[in-house]
């Protein structure tokens, strides 16, 4: 049984093509691309040498889920994230999804069924776009930020939760000639602190797994580990967790 999961996120659109629980292909396109969902699905099919007619079920998730014309069904990001995380790392019970515009803390059971969740409030603090703004302010490319922050030797506190205010806080640190790696470490700590609060609210249950694009940032993960005093695992393809969950849900629904 072939199924596709498509995660139309606020920044990127991810698609995975699966045969039962095996991923055949993945595709990621920028959400601002014209017909991003179509492009991602087509890329997945082409990589696997299949055509649209071969796939029975497509479930869409993410903020743009209702705009995916090809979808045979929909599910919220929360349900898909948990399912995808448990698929990648079966011991996952607490899932942190560190997305572009939202952070989600989800608790689930061994089958990936959600038992509780909290989301960040209507604000970008603690999310990917926050990091994007900081990357621009410091002129450090996003992929390098985490690694560089590990070289920090001094504690810097970034306390503003608002992206705009945090940016001016960072700029004033630059003017005071504080080392970039120290500022970066402070930025990562401030994001991690916020996520740690959410983790406490949902209940810090083992195993904690981080997914979403920002889960690739070792600086954030390091600080969460330190604050929470617990291991935080990251699957091989963290940004695809939601899409994988959607594909699995598509297959389930098709069977029942």
């Amino acid at each position: 049984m072939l199924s596709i999961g498509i995660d139309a996120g606020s920044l990127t659109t991810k698609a995975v093509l699966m045969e039962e629980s095996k991923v055949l292909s993945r595709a990621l396109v920028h959400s601002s691309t014209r017909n991003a969902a179509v492009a991602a699905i087509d890329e997945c099919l082409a990589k696997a040498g299949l055509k649209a007619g071969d796939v029975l079920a497509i479930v869409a998730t993410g903020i743009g889920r209702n705009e995916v014309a090809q979808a045979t069904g929909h599910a919220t990001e929360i349900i898909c994230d948990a399912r995808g995380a448990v698929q990648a790392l079966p011991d996952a019970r607490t899932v942190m999804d560190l997305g572009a515009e939202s952070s989600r803390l989800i608790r689930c059971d061994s089958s990936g069924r959600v038992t509780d969740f909290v989301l960040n409030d209507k604000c970008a603090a603690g999310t990917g776009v926050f990091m994007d703004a900081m990357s621009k302010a410091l002129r450090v490319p996003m992929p390098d930020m985490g690694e560089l922050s590990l070289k920090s030797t001094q504690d810097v506190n970034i306390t503003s939760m608002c992206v705009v205010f945090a940016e001016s806080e960072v700029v004033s640190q630059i003017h005071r000639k504080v080392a970039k790696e120290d500022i970066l470490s402070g930025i990562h700590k401030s994001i991690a602190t916020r996520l740690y609060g959410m983790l406490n609210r949902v209940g810090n249950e083992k195993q904690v797994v981080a997914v979403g694009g920002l889960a690739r940032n070792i600086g954030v993960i390091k600080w969460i580990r330190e604050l929470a005093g617990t291991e935080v695992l990251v699957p091989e393809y963290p940004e695809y967790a939601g899409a994988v969950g959607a594909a699995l849900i598509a297959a389930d629904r098709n069977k029942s």
Partner: protein
Amino acid sequence: MSALETLRKSVKDPQKIAGEAKAAGKKVLGYRCVFMPEEILHAAGIVPFPVFGTPEAVSLSDAYFQPNLCEFIRNIFDLALKGKLDYLDGLVLCNTCDAVRKLYDHWKAYIGSPVCYMINNPQRQFTEAGLKYQYQELGEFRRAMETFAGKPVTDDALRDSIRLHNQTRSLLKQVYDFRKPDSPLLSGEEAMDVVMACMVLPKDRANALLKQLILELKQRANPPPSHGPRIMVTGSIIDNPALIRMVEEVGGTVVADDLCTTTRYFWYSVDEGGDPLAALARHTTEKPVCACMHPAEARLEYMMDLVKEYRVEGIIYFNLMYCDPFLYEGVMFKKKFEERGIPTILLETEHTPSGMGQLKTRVQAFLEML
């Protein structure tokens, strides 16, 4: 037109009802809060009129209140500043939260109407001292209303008034019984409209419509669709059914609601025997429906009664931003409900409907989780 349609239509334009009373030469007093004893106003021949906000964003009241204060209060003050509450002869408030206390101060200072009255409520409920205090306080309120109305409020008139209002309460409870079956015969949105209509309509008119509504519901041919989990909605004041409609649109079956515009208004009736003023005082001090009141355990018990009666499977808290009393209780109550096996979600909302998409995703995920 069916009773349901008539009731729902009257909520669409509540000002019209107040306008009609005014045109008939009556005095109309706006009020806020389920602790306000409507019976005293009614017995004095004054029309009690619940003030609701509008979905419009505030503008003029920004000159008086910081934006990080209760948006509901800012909304009402905005309406007053814009002259949209000019048909009222005044405002009666109950001493519940900081926001209401400051609305009183601002109303008195800047709106200026014949009446601006604050009834003090002892916030620690279920005490003899509180009851005595409330009795005195309501006695004073009764005298103030006698002066304003220019006529005495007799014990007999008060007793009649209590009976009339109790009838509304018990009829509303009967209407709510139609939400108990597996497939409720009344949707959450309809139920809220019905209660709000009973708040604004003259009680004899409301009671007649409710009796007719009960007959209609008994043989309702096209009940609202219901297949999703049975949900109870609670939280800060909601005076616009948009949020309830949203929950039902994404598949929740709203079977119960603990809100100022629904169950809190009618759940407890007033004792009909003895001293009517003492009965009203007891009613106020033994009605644990608000997060402003103390102790929290009593309110939790009351909510658990609703959960059991309406067989609730999940609870959604819609808390207004900056609404301290409900925001403070939220997390603790969520834990308490979950200990009792009822999943609960806390959501923060704004009085002016905004960010509906984000709220919808959260509600949808919650329903998928149940």
